[in-house]
């Protein structure tokens, strides 16, 4: 195979029969601005063919080019001694010791999940799984961060059941445990839900696979499912003219096949165990276009793709559809010369399609051939270097006035107020959801949903047979804080993720983010994005918590109404000896209950304010990162020192809610007394001050002494025991009543009349 452009490659591409002319309307339908189209003409030096236009449109879309967010994402810290691969590859990679690496990323599938909840969510999971195993990892855990509209909205119930079934349907069939996540409800998501899926995998740290192509002449191989007309989006309707296919033949919703993905996973890992692979890349958004382009671009090479060789699911498919299809469960591989047969055998054993569809060249051009004709011929470097990048105007959200607890009424009925909070949509048990996810398969799940702040999964010993590590994972964001003040909200999301990892005894190592925002062309939305990034960057830096991968989802709006800004933070940490980890369950009587951290009683933006008084106002709780770190490092030390039997970080709902969650999880009550405090009782018990933990230990005195020595504010509140949650002089409530309220809300809601 020649690496130089052949004669035919030098010819201008032929147009396909009935290919529509590239009118301004066709350009607009492809989402390219007139100015962007001028760049296209500049790069091409001629009018592009429809396929070429489609490729520019895909590569320069917000999704692939990050044109609105790039300048801001640059501000996030991405380095640390343990970071093996930061943002830019399919997923982030960190060193977790014993010759092992953790590979992880989070990705959104918001719009598809709103249109077709089951398939949208399922293919979201499938996509993020491929991002992780394409780098050589075996996925060991999934998490998902879900945001739905208000419960009373007519669509919400249907969306919840479809999304949850879809996430379970895909992950369960793949045999990867779904061990954690978060679920919120808020009116701002009524017309635009958020489905963010995260996968964590493990690989030998010396066997990581990358996308950068190498080796002129090396074969380009297509494996997995056949290509159909899946997910060819609205813009591409321009292509309907040149085939008589009906609209009906152009589903914009992809259907997932988890069975094929499971085969693809096993086949890829089997091939990766050989040394046949030069580079590998999953076909995600913009399918064959972005995958082939990225592989060639990263390798500084060119590529010839013989589109007629692509395995097709349907008749009459054309190059345009083949390049832009988002059919699922497909991978692109550059093999070492001569490795084709070895690879073919493996994929045929797993009953998957395998086809050599092209080869690498040194021309730095992407050349598309179709039955011998050249139908596309694009120079690769300029498409990357001259891609539009926007510094969109932005205005920061001012910090709202601090809400004085004195201006927030006490509950008239403490018992009722706690019941209200424990059964409100955001705090009610999500067991109805995670019981539909296989969270136990693989036999490594040490901390299950609701038993701890982070999920904890055993890491199998490294190649040398050494290690009993645990991998801690969480997903966090408090959108109402971000809405009120993006910088504080961004800081808080990172801090809570770090705190959740810490609360099980693990050392937080790195972050993946999923930035869900509205229309970036509105300065106040761009300001929310900017603010959130500033806050996140500050927190990640202060906590040595680099961002190694992420995803941006913009234009989350309906009728001009944006969602709450939602920078979801996924985080991973490691505990050296999984036997030392603790959950948040209080399982025995006589334990001292100790509160760590300072409480001024911050009610601004609290759930107490929203759920019992219907007010969403005030400045969100500030996050002091030095204190956050000091307190967290102390807690972690106490846990791995085996001096703690249960730990829970305090977040939504504050101290009383955290205490109630610990009691319910472990089935043991507590009796506590309010300590001397500047804060009035409701602010002390429901305030959402940051950097705090509740700990249960059999030696309260020792813990208080250690805390004092470390300069960490600590106070013993009382002891565990009995069937009730008792706050002396304020309330006494049977755990059974609390449990009923906490666990009934979601199932009752899902089973109640539509």
């Amino acid at each position, binding site marked *: 195979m020649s690496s130089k452009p052949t004669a035919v490659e030098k010819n201008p591409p032929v147009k396909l029969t009935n290919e529509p002319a590239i009118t301004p309307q066709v350009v607009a339908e492809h989402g390219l601005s007139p100015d962007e189209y001028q760049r296209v003409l500049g790069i091409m030096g001629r009018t592009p063919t429809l396929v070429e236009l489609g490729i520019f449109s895909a590569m320069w879309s917000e999704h692939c080019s990050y044109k609105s967010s790039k300048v801001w994402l640059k501000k996030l810290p991405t380095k640390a001694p343990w970071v093996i691969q930061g943002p830019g590859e399919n997923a982030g990679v960190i060193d977790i010791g014993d010759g092992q690496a953790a590979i992880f990323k989070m990705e959104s599938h918001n719009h598809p999940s709103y249109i077709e909840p089951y398939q949208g969510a399922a293919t979201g999971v499938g996509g993020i799984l491929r991002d992780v195993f394409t780098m050589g990892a075996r996925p060991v855990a999934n998490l998902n961060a879900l945001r739905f509209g208000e419960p009373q909205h007519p669509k919400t119930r249907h969306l919840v059941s479809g999304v949850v079934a879809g996430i379970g349907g895909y992950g369960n069939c*793949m*045999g990867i445990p779904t061990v954690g996540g978060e679920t919120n409800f808020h009116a701002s998501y009524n017309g635009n839900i958020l489905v963010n899926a995260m996968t964590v995998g493990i690989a030998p740290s010396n066997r990581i696979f990358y996308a950068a192509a190498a080796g002129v002449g090396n074969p380009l191989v297509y494996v997995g499912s056949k290509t159909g007309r899946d997910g060819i989006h609205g813009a591409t309707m321009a292509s309907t003219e040149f085939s008589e296919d009906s609209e009906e033949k152009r589903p914009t919703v992809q259907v997932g096949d*988890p069975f094929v993905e499971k085969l693809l996973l096993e086949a890829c890992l089997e091939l990766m165990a050989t040394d046949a692979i030069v580079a590998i890349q999953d076909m995600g958004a913009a399918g064959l276009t972005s995958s082939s382009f990225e592989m060639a671009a990263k390798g500084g090479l060119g590529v010839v793709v013989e589109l007629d060789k692509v395995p097709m699911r349907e008749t009459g498919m054309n190059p345009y559809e083949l390049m832009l299809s988002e059919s699922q469960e497909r991978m692109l591989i550059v093999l070492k010369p001569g490795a084709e047969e070895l690879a073919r055998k493996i994929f045929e054993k797993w009953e998957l399609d395998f086809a050599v569809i092209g080869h690498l060249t040194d021309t730095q051009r992407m050349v598309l051939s179709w039955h011998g004709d050249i139908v596309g011929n694009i120079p690769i470097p300029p498409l990357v270097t001259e891609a539009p990048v926007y510094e969109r105007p932005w205005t920061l959200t001012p910090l709202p006035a601090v809400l004085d607890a004195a201006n927030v009424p006490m509950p008239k009925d403490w018992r009722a107020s706690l019941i209200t909070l424990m059964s409100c949509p955001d705090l009610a048990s999500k067991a109805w959801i995670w019981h539909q996810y296989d969270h136990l398969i693989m036999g490594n799940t040490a901390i299950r949903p609701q038993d701890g702040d982070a999920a904890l999964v055993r890491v199998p010993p490294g190649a040398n047979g050494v290690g009993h590590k645990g991998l801690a994972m969480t997903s966090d964001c408090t959108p109402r804080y971000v809405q009120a003040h993006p910088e504080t909200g961004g800081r808080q999301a990172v801090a809570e993720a770090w705190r959740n990892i810490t609360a099980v005894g693990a050392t937080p190592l790195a972050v993946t983010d999923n930035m869900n925002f509205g229309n970036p062309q509105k300065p106040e939305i761009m300001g929310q994005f900017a603010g959130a990034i500033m806050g996140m960057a500050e927190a990640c830096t202060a906590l040595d918590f680099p961002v190694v991968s992420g995803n941006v989802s913009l234009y989350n709006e309906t009728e001009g109404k944006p969602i709450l800004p939602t920078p979801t933070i996924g985080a991973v940490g490691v505990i050296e000896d999984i036997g030392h980890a603790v959950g948040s369950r209080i399982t025995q009587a006589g334990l001292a209950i100790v509160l760590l951290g300072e409480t001024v009683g911050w009610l601004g933006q609290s759930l107490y304010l929203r759920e019992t008084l219907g007010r969403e106002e005030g400045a969100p709780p500030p996050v002091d990162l030095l204190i956050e770190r000091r307190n967290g490092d102390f807690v972690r030390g106490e846990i791995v020192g085996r001096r703690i039997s249960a730990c829970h970080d305090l977040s939504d709902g504050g101290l009383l809610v955290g205490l109630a969650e610990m009691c319910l999880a472990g089935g043991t009550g507590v009796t506590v007394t309010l300590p001397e405090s500047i804060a009035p009782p409701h602010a002390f018990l429901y305030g959402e001050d940051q950097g705090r933990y509740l700990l249960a230990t059999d030696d309260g005195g020792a813990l208080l002494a250690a805390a004092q020595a470390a300069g960490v504010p600590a106070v013993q509140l009382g002891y565990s025991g009995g069937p009730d949650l008792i706050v002396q002089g304020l309330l006494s409530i049977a755990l059974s009543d609390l449990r009923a309220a906490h666990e009934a809300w979601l199932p009752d809601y899902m089973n109640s009349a539509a």
Partner: protein
Amino acid sequence: MKAAILVFPGSNREVDVAQAIELVTGRKPQMIWHGDGDFEKTDLIVVPGGFSYGDYLRCGAMAAQSPVMAEVKRRAAQGVPVLAICNGFQIAAEAGLLPGVLMRNAHLKFVCADVHLKVETSQSLFTNRYQEGQVIRVPVAHAEGNYFADEATLKRIEDRGQVAFRYCAPDGTVDGTGNPNGSIRNIAGVFNESKTVMGLMPHPENAVEPMFGGTDGKALFEGLVEALT
């Protein structure tokens, strides 16, 4: 005890059960690919959980027709013990090795949770380490574990003591509260007539270590080792 574990395209708990068996025997079981109609002699055949062939038509229907299952039937007929877990149970039922069928869960949802099981008999290779009436805690993880058989079949298997486990409440009461999927008469596991084949929906292989779901499932494998070595 030499054990062989079948692997179908889409199997996914074969590793879990292999780990459990290695834990009690100290040796790795042999893994048998679905295409292999022939494999070396073993003391135990395990049909593991998962989504064989995607489980797209009826759970287990396609796997039941595979070459390896033809061989398993042959050996089962010769008395080679077969342990069929979850999807394995569905496959064995479809293959006619066990009575009854497994239908969609009554609530139509996939369910992953710890359940309590009442041991119906200790008189079998699989349950000899348990006491009759003992209550154990192990997880389930399935969408189609709703056991069904017609009255005649039910009467027959109950008369012959072919029910191995029933779902129950933590205190052992066998009623609706402990039933995760609507199984008729709370049946969670059954034997063939000679009690050499057992199928069950729950996953004892995921309850063999204290930190990872408890150890109530371990005795099942220890019992097999005792009986088969």
